[in-house]
């Protein structure tokens, strides 16, 4: 039968999410809270094994939210590049202080265990943070972000400007593709040119982009006025928030925020009042350090 087996999806900032994803049952603000609260976790944690726990937890959340894990493939190269940048920066340019455990030497550069362990620590911390951001972008829509801002009672102008910015990005991308196709149709393909020529010819994109952006500004301004909108509000009319009225911050939402805040509070306590999540107490670093014959890490 037509339509049988077709999974209904909802557009998100990064792709599509099934309509039946449990994340949709939560208030839109939860997604923003998730980004704001959970992204602080890796900043509080030094010990790599705890960041690994966070990474595993993120994968579980990805699966539970029915985010297509295939989306992560696109970020493999970025993650690898980040790894190499961090590894090289910390290992070769991390500096040296007396007391560091030297595990190797490349020409005049001393490779110390302390620098290597920091590279591992920083990379895993970043991995965790990037997963949080990818998750947010995979489940949130522009509308969720805007509703979140409205729920926080920010002035409508602020949330609307952000919404308009999202909209402008979309329009600019469309304009860019149109211009590129038009340039290609007249035998200009920047792909074929060396970098210096690409930079020189980039003006051919910029000029029409700016012209189109100005025209769009006019169109948006006309469309806003034609729909009875004024940033200052019309006299005697309080703007209704119809969209926000569709969502209710319920028990489930309170539990979700409470859990996120509780974990954050625990992490703050562990970081500032104990040594459990520091590199000095890291079991993983101790283990790797043991393998390299340098004892403890950090």
């Amino acid at each position, binding site marked *: 039968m037509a339509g049988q087996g077709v999974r209904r999806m909802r557009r998100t900032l990064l792709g599509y999410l099934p309509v039946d994803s449990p994340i949709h049952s939560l208030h839109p603000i939860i997604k923003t809270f998730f980004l704001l609260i959970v992204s602080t976790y890796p900043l509080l944690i030094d010990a790599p094994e705890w960041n690994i726990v966070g990474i595993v937890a993120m994968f579980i959340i990805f699966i539970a939210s029915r985010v297509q894990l295939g989306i992560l493939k696109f970020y493999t190269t970025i993650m690898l590049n980040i790894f190499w940048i961090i590894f090289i920066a910390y290992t070769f340019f991390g500096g040296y202080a007396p007391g560091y455990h030297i595990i190797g030497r490349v020409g005049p550069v001393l490779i110390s265990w302390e620098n290597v362990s920091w590279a591992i620590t920083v990379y895993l911390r970043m991995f965790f943070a990037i997963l949080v951001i990818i998750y947010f972008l995979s489940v949130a829509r522009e*509308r969720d972000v805007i509703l979140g801002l409205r729920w926080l009672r920010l002035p409508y102008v602020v949330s609307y400007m952000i919404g308009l910015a999202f909209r402008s990005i979309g329009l600019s991308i469309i304009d860019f593709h149109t211009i590129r196709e038009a340039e290609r149709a007249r035998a200009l393909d920047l792909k074929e040119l060396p970098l210096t020529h690409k930079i020189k010819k980039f003006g051919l994109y910029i000029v029409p982009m700016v012209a189109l952006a100005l025209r769009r500004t006019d169109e948006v301004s006309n469309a806003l006025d034609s729909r009875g909108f004024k940033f200052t509000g019309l006299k005697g009319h309080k703007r209704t928030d*119809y969209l926000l009225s569709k969502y209710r911050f319920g028990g489930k939402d309170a539990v979700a925020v409470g859990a996120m805040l509780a974990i954050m509070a625990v992490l703050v306590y562990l970081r500032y009042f104990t040594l459990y999540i520091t590199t000095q107490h890291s079991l993983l670093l101790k283990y790797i350090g043991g393998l390299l014959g340098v004892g403890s890490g950090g």
Partner: protein
Amino acid sequence: MGAVAEPAIKVEDLWWKYEGRKDWALKGVNLTIERGEFVGIVGPNESGKTTLVMAMNGLIPNNYRGVMKGRVVSVGMDTREHTTAEIARRVGFVFSDPESQFLTMTVEEELAFGLENMGLPVEEIRDRIRWAMEITRLDEEFLEKPPYELSGGQKQRVAIAAVLAMKPDVIILDEPTSMLDPIGKSEVFDVLVQLRRSYNATIIVVEHRLEDIAYLADKMILLYYGEVLRVAPPREFFDNIPFLLKHYVYPPEIMIAVHRLREEGLYDGPIPLRFEEGVKIIEEVLRA
């Protein structure tokens, strides 16, 4: 004696020149559009059609720089004394490019936007969205979708629904099908037919597709380089085909064919407004 109903739109000796331009875009336009009328505005490119309708909803002179003489009163509001946003509550405007009028990221937000600006209660907004979607035949599953992901016809129907939901006294559609493919065009015209039947408002359409507008309109206006050359009911408007052709307005082929029969003395009745009507006339002439 009962009070005489105020016209929907009254244009009095309107002159408009865009800043930096030498020529007047509108030259002494006088027009009266009554409430509940369905009006078609035609004319060649650059004849001032868009300028005229923008003057009716206040975009001119409020959002454009230029010189204006004369006045426009839309549903009792002088466009020079009211902002476009104020006029917009009673005069809706649908632009030719559906993409350019979307202000939000989902169809539902788009439909709610004007209603939120009007400060209507949530319940009423919900009812009006449902009603506008029904008239424009938009499926409920569109609500969650970004409007720019829809087909051309669907996009323009969303734009019409967004204006319609505000229940304006006047709806102006500026070449609503000019950027659409044939399917999109017919989707939009279906909506116009539906509006004509079920929504008792003044509807003003700037359109090149005369075959679709002819039978819907109560009144046709020919604008030619800033001047109104002809205002008449469609039957009368299309009666003088040579006059229209002389002014670069090309009536549907069926009208021209029947006009030829008239020229040949084979037929002396009115010019048909619908294709079927024209076919019937030709069949009768052939039979005779």
